C-alpha cells in the first residue's frame, strides 16, 4: 500500500544507528551537490540541460550541411567533413538530444505523476546520467583529435566500419560512445520500470496512470529489450576492430548483412523510443487545454502497448532493398502496415479529445496541435514505405530524409518543445511569455516546413542521401536553396525559443501553483517542487487525480491530515542520502573507454605485446569503476528522515533513523 515514505521503519528502528563509516556528502548547493545528487528532479534537470546543449551542437551541424547543399558543386565542406557532419548530426540528435530530453521528463515528471518521492533506485539514476554524459564525451571527442569525428553514418554499416575501411580511432569512439549510452539508457529504463510498477501512490492503479507515465513505461520496456541488440552488434564490430575477429570479415565467412539485422532490431524500436514519450506529452497537454478528459484513455494506452509490441516485428523494412527474399519482404511489409493502425488510432483519439472541447490556445497547445498535424504528414509518408516496391524507389533518397524529419522534428521535437513550455511553470515557478512563445512557434513551424517539404520532391526526383554535392543540371537547385533558407528560418525560431527560455528562467513572471488548471498529480505541488515532493503521499481517487482533488477539497484535506499524522508516527519523510560513488563509477568508465577507444597500443608493430598503455589505461578505468561500485554497495541505501512545518518548510532532519 504505502510508497517509499512509510518504509518498514518500525521493524528496523531498534537495530538502526549503524555507524556511517563512509563519507556522506550533504552539500545542497554548489558543484558537489550536483555531482552527488540523487534527487530525480535535479537529475532530470541535468538531462534536460545536456539535451538542449547538444541540440545546439547538432543544429549547428545541420546548418553546415544545409550551407554545403545550398548551391550545386559547393566546396564549403569537403566530402570527408560532410560525412562527419551527417554522421554526427544523426547520432547527436537521436542519442544526445531526443533521448536525454525524453529522459529529462521521465525523471522530473513521472515520479510526480505517480505520487512518489523519488525513483526506486536513486543512486542508479545518478549513475545513468553520468554514464550518459561519459558516452556523449567519448562520442564527440573526435572533433578535437586528428582522427576526426565518426564518419560512417549513424547506422554504422559494416564493413564500412571495419578497420580496413575506417582505420582511425573515429569509429572506435563511435562504437564505445554508443555502447555507454546504451548502458546508461538500460540502467535508467530498469529504474523507471520498477518505479512505475512498485512505487505508485495508494489508489493509483495502473488504469489510472497518466498517459505520459504509461508511455514512460512502454519506452522503458523498449529500451530494455532493444538495446541489447545494438550492444551485441557493437561488441562484434569492436572485436573485429580490436582483436581481428571475423564477424564482418567476408573473406573468412563473416556476413555484413548481420550488422544490418542486429542494428535495425535495435534501430526500429528506437524510433518508437523517440516518439512514444512525445505521444505521452501530447496526451497530457491536449486534455488540459481542451478542458476535457483524454478521449478513449484505455484505447490510447493499449495502442501505445501494441505500437511497442509490433515495433519489434518491423525492422527489416529498413532493408527491403537488400534482397531478403519475397516471403520475408512480404511479412515485414504487412507488419509495417499493421503498426500504422494503432498510431492512427491515437491520432483519432487526440482529435476526439479536441472535439467539442473549450480550447485555450496557449503556447504548449499550439505546439501540440503543430505536432498532431506534422506527425501525421510524417506518418503518412512513412506508411508509404511499407509497400516494398514503393520503398525500393525511395530508399536512400531525400524522400526518406523528409519523412523522418517530419516524424522526429514535427513529431518528437515539437512535443518536447510543447512539454518544456507546459511544465516550465512547475519546474521553475515562472511562466514563459505567450507572445515570444508563439513567435518562436511560428518561426519553427514555417522554417521546418520550408526546409523539409521540398525534400519530398527532391527525393522523388532522385536526389540521394549522404552525398556531399550535386551537379547544377539535375533539377535540384531550387529545392535545395529553398531548404537551406528554411533551415535558417528554423534556426531563428529555435534561437528565439532558447533566448525566451533563458530569459524566463532568470526574469520570467512568477506564477502561482497549477497555472494551467491541469489534471494530473504533479500540479498539486508548489512550484518549484520541494526536494521531498509530496508533503503527504496523495491518495488517488480518480484517473485525473488532481482534477478530482480540486473538486473535493474538504474530503482530501481531511484525508491528508490523517495521513500526515501517520507519517509523523512512522518517523517522518524518508530521504535517501546523496552519494559520490555513481559519479566515480562513471569516471572509471570514462577512463576505461578512453583506453579501449582512443589510446594507441605501445608500438605499431604487428604484435605490440599485451601490456601496452592501452591495456593499462583500460584496466585502470575498470579498477576505478569496480572499487566505486563496491563502495557504492558498502555505503548502503541509507537515508534520513525529515519533519515538516505546516507550510512545508523543513522543521528538522533526523539522521539517526538508519535504513
Amino acid at each position, binding site marked *: 500500500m504505502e510508497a517509499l515514505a512509510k518504509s518498514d521503519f*518500525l*521493524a528496523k528502528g531498534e537495530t538502526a544507528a549503524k555507524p556511517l563509516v563512509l563519507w556522506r556528502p550533504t552539500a545542497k548547493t554548489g558543484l558537489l551537490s550536483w555531482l552527488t545528487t540523487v534527487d530525480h528532479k535535479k537529475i532530470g534537470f541535468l538531462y534536460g540541460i545536456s539535451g538542449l546543449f547538444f541540440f545546439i551542437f547538432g543544429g549547428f551541424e545541420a546548418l553546415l550541411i544545409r550551407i554545403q547543399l545550398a548551391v550545386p558543386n559547393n566546396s564549403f565542406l569537403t566530402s570527408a567533413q560532410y560525412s562527419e557532419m551527417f554522421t554526427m548530426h544523426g547520432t547527436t540528435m537521436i542519442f544526445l538530444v531526443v533521448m536525454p530530453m525524453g529522459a529529462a521528463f521521465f525523471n522530473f515528471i513521472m515520479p510526480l505523476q505517480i505520487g512518489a518521492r523519488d525513483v526506486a533506485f536513486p543512486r542508479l539514476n545518478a549513475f545513468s546520467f553520468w554514464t550518459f554524459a561519459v558516452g556523449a564525451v567519448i562520442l564527440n571527442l573526435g572533433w578535437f583529435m586528428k582522427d576526426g569525428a565518426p564518419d560512417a553514418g549513424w547506422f554504422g554499416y559494416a564493413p564500412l566500419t571495419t578497420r580496413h575501411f575506417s582505420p582511425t580511432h573515429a569509429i572506435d569512439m563511435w562504437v564505445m560512445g554508443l555502447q555507454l549510452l546504451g548502458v546508461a539508457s538500460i540502467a535508467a529504463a*530498469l529504474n523507471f*520500470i520498477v518505479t512505475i510498477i512498485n512505487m505508485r501512490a495508494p489508489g493509483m492503479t495502473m488504469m489510472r496512470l497518466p498517459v505520459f507515465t504509461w508511455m514512460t513505461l512502454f519506452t522503458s520496456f523498449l529500451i530494455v529489450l532493444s538495446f541489447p541488440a545494438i550492444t551485441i552488434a557493437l561488441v562484434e564490430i569492436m572485436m573485429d576492430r580490436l582483436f581481428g575477429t571475423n564477424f564482418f570479415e567476408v573473406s*573468412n565467412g*563473416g556476413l555484413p548483412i548481420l550488422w544490418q539485422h542486429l542494428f535495425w532490431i535495435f534501430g526500429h524500436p528506437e524510433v518508437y523510443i523517440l516518439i512514444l514519450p512525445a505521444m505521452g506529452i501530447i496526451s497530457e497537454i491536449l486534455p488540459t487545454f481542451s478542458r476535457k478528459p483524454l478521449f478513449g484513455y484505455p484505447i490510447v494506452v493499449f495502442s501505445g502497448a501494441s505500437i511497442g509490441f509490433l515495433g519489434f516485428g518491423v525492422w527489416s523494412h529498413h532493408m527491403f532493398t537488400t534482397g531478403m527474399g519475397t516471403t520475408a519482404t512480404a511479412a515485414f511489409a504487412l507488419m509495417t502496415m499493421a503498426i500504422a493502425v494503432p498510431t492512427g488510432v491515437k491520432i483519432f483519439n487526440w482529435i476526439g479529445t479536441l472535439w467539442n472541447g473549450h480550447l485555450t490556445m496557449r503556447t504548449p497547445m499550439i505546439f501540440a496541435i503543430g505536432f498532431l498535424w506534422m506527425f501525421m504528414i510524417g506518418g503518412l509518408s512513412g506508411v508509404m514505405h511499407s509497400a516494398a516496391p514503393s520503398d525500393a524507389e525511395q530508399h536512400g533518397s531525400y524522400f526518406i530524409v523528409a519523412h523522418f524529419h517530419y516524424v522526429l522534428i514535427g513529431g518528437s521535437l515539437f512535443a518536447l518543445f510543447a512539454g518544456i513550455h507546459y511544465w516550465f511553470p512547475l519546474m521553475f515557478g515562472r511562466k514563459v511569455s505567450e507572445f515570444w512563445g508563439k513567435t518562436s512557434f511560428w518561426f519553427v513551424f514555417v522554417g521546418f516546413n520550408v526546409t523539409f517539404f521540398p525534400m519530398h520532391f527532391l527525393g522523388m526526383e532522385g536526389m540521394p542521401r549522404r552525398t556531399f554535392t550535386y551537379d547544377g543540371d539535375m533539377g535540384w537547385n531550387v529545392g535545395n536553396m529553398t531548404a537551406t533558407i528554411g533551415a535558417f528560418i528554423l534556426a531563428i525560431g529555435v534561437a528565439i525559443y532558447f533566448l525566451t527560455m533563458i530569459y524566463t528562467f532568470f526574469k520570467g513572471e512568477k506564477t502561482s501553483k497549477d497555472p494551467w488548471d491541469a489534471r494530473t498529480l504533479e500540479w498539486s505541488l508548489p512550484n518549484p517542487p520541494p526536494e521531498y515532493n509530496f508533503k503527504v503521499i496523495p491518495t488517488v481517487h480518480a484517473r485525473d487525480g488532481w482534477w478530482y482533488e480540486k473538486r473535493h477539497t474538504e474530503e482530501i484535506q481531511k484525508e491528508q491530515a490523517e495521513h500526515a499524522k501517520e507519517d509523523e508516527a512512522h518517523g517522518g519523510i524518508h530521504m535517501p542520502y546523496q552519494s559520490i560513488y555513481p559519479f566515480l563509477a562513471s569516471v572509471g568508465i570514462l577512463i576505461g573507454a578512453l583506453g579501449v577507444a582512443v589510446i594507441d597500443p605501445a608500438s605499431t608493430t604487428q604484435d605490440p605485446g599485451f601490456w601496452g598503455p592501452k591495456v593499462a589505461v583500460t584496466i585502470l578505468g575498470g579498477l576505478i569503476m569496480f572499487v566505486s561500485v563496491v563502495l557504492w*554497495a558498502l555505503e548502503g541505501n541509507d537515508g534520513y528522515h525529515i519533519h515538516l512545518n505546516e507550510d512545508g518548510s523543513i522543521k528538522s532532519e533526523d539522521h539517526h533513523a538508519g535504513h
Partner: protein
Amino acid sequence: MSSTAAAGAIDHHHDSTTVTGIPNKKLLMWAFLASDCMFFGCLISTHLIYRLHPPPGTPNARDVFSIELTSFSTFILLMSSLMMALAVNSIQKGNLKSLRWSLLTTIFFGLIFLGCQVYEFRNFVFEKHLTITNSILGTTFFTLTGTHGLHVLIGVIWLTAMLIYSFTGRLTEKDAIDVESMGLYWHFVDIVWIVIFTAVYLLEYL
C-alpha cells in the same frame, strides 16, 4: 503494514513498502534478466547463423570439441544452481552457518566450471589450432562462451563478496532479498548455459 513486520518474523515473500509486494530489487533483477535474454539471444543467433555458412577451411566443430569435458562442467554448473537455491533458503531461515557452506560450494562449483573453460580454451587454441581470428567458428565460439564465462566470473565475485559479508555482520536475515536477487542472476546464467550447451555443442553431434 509496518506493524505486522515488527511483530513477527520477516516475511520474505511480500514487501509491504511496494505496491505489488514484490521487492524493488527482485523486480529490477527480473527486468534486467529480460534484457540479458535479448543480449544472449543475439549472440547465440549470431553463432547459429554463421554455423550455416562455414567458408572452406573452417575446422569441423566435432573435431575440436571434447563433449565429455563440457558435459562434466555443465553438470557441475547445474549442481551449483542447487547449492544457490539452498543458500537462499538458508538465509531466509536466518541460518548463517548453512548459508556460508552453501555459498562456498556454489563458488567452488562456479570456479570448477571456469577452470574447465580455461582448460578448454587453452586446449582449443594450442592443441586444436582454433583461434578467435583464424575462422568464423573460432570467432563466434570464443565470443559467445567467453561472454558467458564472464557472466559466471561476475557471479563468482558477487558470491564471494556475500560470503565475506556473512562473516562481518553486513549480511543477515533481513538482507535475504540480496541473496535471492543474486540467485536469480545465477540461475539465469545457468539456464543460458543449457541453451549454449545445446545450440553450440550438442547440435554438432546430431
